[in-house]
């Protein structure tokens, strides 16, 4: 199923959040990446991270010495496509691309905001707690939970004054997206040309999360259930991809990746793909500048030592305080 480019025999490591609610990973950001790898028939293993729920770099995919982090260049899926590791869209015609891009934009923005609102603001604590914070001690989980709610409200622009208005707006956009996608999908297996694309991975992740993780009182879930073909699409692919079985995985703490020993490095520098981090705070200094700074440090230190030697030699009496000050000398005479 699906068409992967240059995955070959190379093995990928996906680090995501833990499974729950019958899903291979319960996090709505990690599930699309997992499904993308599944749809691409990639050879990958899953590791779960339960100690960093507020990170934005998870999920990430390690490939050789390189890594694709979720908070770089639009996300893991975009990086995998850009670096030509896995590109589900490769064989789609150029005519489908504009439609594909706009659909993806709709799913990535409207439906993503709807998930955020539903999970962190509308539903309440239990679902989010079970996904992200259940493995942390209660006080830490609680503090991080509150912090996340605050961050989501800030991101969505939700305040006490405009809460209802924003909620209406978010659900309205989600409904419009569902209707558009339902019309687009029709009776097809996939959204575009009967081949899986990254849109399928993104929406499938969204739909499975809404159907299985959100409670029945969820308005988002109720709206999605109104579109039978979308529900059937999600359930069909869930069975097809065998998502019911728990993926073989390891916790990061028992990873088989070992640190190198002193006699030889474990890996050589890779000439493969990598990602550029954000602009670094310091510029590379020229050799001359480094030499100048080093000499300046030595000069200052020497001056300081010279001053100290002078003070020590001139104030010899000060060194007698090295003796025990608390001893009370009793003069017997």
């Amino acid at each position, binding site marked *: 199923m699906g068409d992967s480019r240059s995955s070959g025999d190379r093995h990928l490591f996906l680090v995501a959040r833990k499974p729950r609610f019958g899903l291979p990973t319960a996090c709505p950001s990690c599930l699309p990446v997992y499904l993308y790898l599944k749809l691409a028939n990639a050879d990958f293993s899953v590791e779960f991270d339960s100690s*960093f729920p507020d990170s934005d770099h998870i999920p990430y995919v390690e490939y050789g*010495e390189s890594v694709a982090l979720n908070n770089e260049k639009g996300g893991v899926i975009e990086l995998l496509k850009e670096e030509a590791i896995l590109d589900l869209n490769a064989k789609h015609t150029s005519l489908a691309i504009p439609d594909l891009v706009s659909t993806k934009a709709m799913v990535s923005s409207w439906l993503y905001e709807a998930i955020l609102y539903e999970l962190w603001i509308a539903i309440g604590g239990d679902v989010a707690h079970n996904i992200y914070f259940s493995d942390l*001690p209660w006080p*830490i989980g609680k503090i991080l939970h509150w912090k996340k709610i605050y961050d989501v409200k800030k991101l969505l622009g939700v305040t006490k004054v405009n809460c209802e208005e924003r909620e209406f707006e978010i659900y309205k956009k989600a409904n419009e997206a569902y209707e558009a996608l339902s019309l687009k999908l029709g009776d097809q297996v996939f959204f575009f040309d009967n081949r899986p694309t990254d849109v399928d991975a993104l929406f499938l992740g969204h739909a499975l999360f809404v159907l299985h993780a959100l409670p029945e009182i969820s308005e988002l879930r109720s709206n999605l259930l109104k579109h039978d073909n979308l529900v059937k699409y999600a359930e069909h692919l869930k069975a097809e991809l065998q998502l019911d079985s728990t993926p073989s995985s390891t916790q990061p703490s028992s990873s088989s990746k070992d640190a*190198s020993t002193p006699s030889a490095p474990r890996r050589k520098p890779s000439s493969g793909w990598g990602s550029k981090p*954000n602009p*670094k705070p310091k510029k590379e200094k020229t050799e001359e500048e480094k030499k100048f700074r080093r000499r300046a440090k030595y000069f200052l230190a020497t001056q300081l030592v010279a001053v100290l030697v002078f*003070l020590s030699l001139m104030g010899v009496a000060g060194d007698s305080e*090295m003796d025990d000050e608390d001893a009370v000398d009793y003069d017997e005479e």
Partner: protein
Amino acid sequence: MANSEPIPRDQTPPSDSEETNGADEISEEGEEEDDTEYEEFEEEEEEELDPVRERERLKSIFRRLSTDPVHVRVHDVVIKGNTKTKDAIIEAEISDLFKKPRTVQELVAAASIANARLKQLDVFDSVSITLDAGPAELPGTTNVVIEVVEASNPLTGNVGVFSKPEARSWSLEGSVKLKNLFGHADIWDTSGAFGWDQSLEISTGVWVPRFKSVPTPLSARAFLLSQDWLKFSSYKERLMGLNFGLLSTNNHDLSYNLTWRTLTDPTRMSSPSIRRQLGHNVLSALKYCYKIDRRDSHLRPKSGYAFSSTSQVSGLWDLRGLKFFRQEFDLRAAMPLGFWNAALNVGLSAGAILPLGRNFTKLSTSVPDRFFLGGHSSLVCSLGGPSSLLGFQTRGLGPNDMRRVLNRNKDEGSFQSGCHDFVGGDLAVTAFADVSFDLPLKIFRDAGIHGHAFVCAGNLAKLSEGEIRNFSTERFLKTFRSSAGVGVILPTKFFRVEVNYCHVLKQFENDHGKNGIQFSFSSPL
């Protein structure tokens, strides 16, 4: 605070000389001897006293007091001068001291100890202990009068620059103390430390010498620490927590630590080993430290030995915190060499950390809790586990992992100087030998400036994540790093300075050993 000697006080009218301190009135058991002495005293008083004879007489009295068993019993302990400090606090410090003495000599020794104990509370400007005569109807007794002067200014502060084994470089430290706020000799302090490497620590706490039925000092401290290990291990560490000192004596120290630790990597350059360690953790640990130091000096020891053992068990909160057992040993010995005031100091320290839990051999340990070697803290002064290895940068050797690689835009350069993260070891061993000697010039000797030559070695090994099966003692010994050097030590009032030239004798690939001059600043105390 002024030192004050315990002074026997006259009950009878004083003689002409101011130096008469009433030793005559301390009567021995046996009234006949007392009467005889008294008569002698009266006779002497009536005479015109020769100052020389008077001095001789006093000397003989003091000689008798110090050598002969002059029996006395403490009748009462009177405390004066404490307006804020509770009587019970002072009494608790000295109550056991004055029950046992039966002679003047023992009493004077006990008074010295009491004086030192009260001064150690650090809430008095001065302490004076006077031995006054007991009630006239109870001969052979004495009243111990303790007069304290409480600190006129309860607020004190200090600032210093130090280098610590755990920190990457030097740090500016300052603290403010508020003494005796509630009259229990409690000391409240707030301290801050700012490191050259942008590390920051802020803490506040309280220390009491005793609390209700607990006879040993107790302390409680809240702290916030932020440390930057990006250059060496690609992570920043933030700790927030509470520390409780449960038992503190000269040799034993028991404390409980509850810390929320967060590791982050803002540069996104970390190696896979570090990347998997990022996140939040809770450290709920009980730490026991046994320390014995019989060296004649902890700054320049010339004889004696010292031993310390630190055990730490973590995972007391619940199943979700870090669970490990950590043990450190440190053994030192010093012996004089008999020339140039020289002394040989040797030391051997070792430490190990193992995770706790089912299949513990396959589990991983937390990187910040592992052992790291390197840095330029003093070999001789620091006592407390393997940490220092001169000639190597902080965290400059041992197990490491390849960082994330950038394969393009070389012009933009790299933030970190190396391409490996040092991830620490689960087993660490260090050893050193140091010879200190006086310098030829008298002016240096008088100032305490001395030289030293040293050789040190150390190694780290990983035992967690299944590596314990691959561990080989022979290979561990063969991969020991070592360095040697000479240096000068300048003890000053504000800090102790070491200027060393180090030469790395043995290092391995990716180690950050460097020949050259190193500076070290440490506390002068």
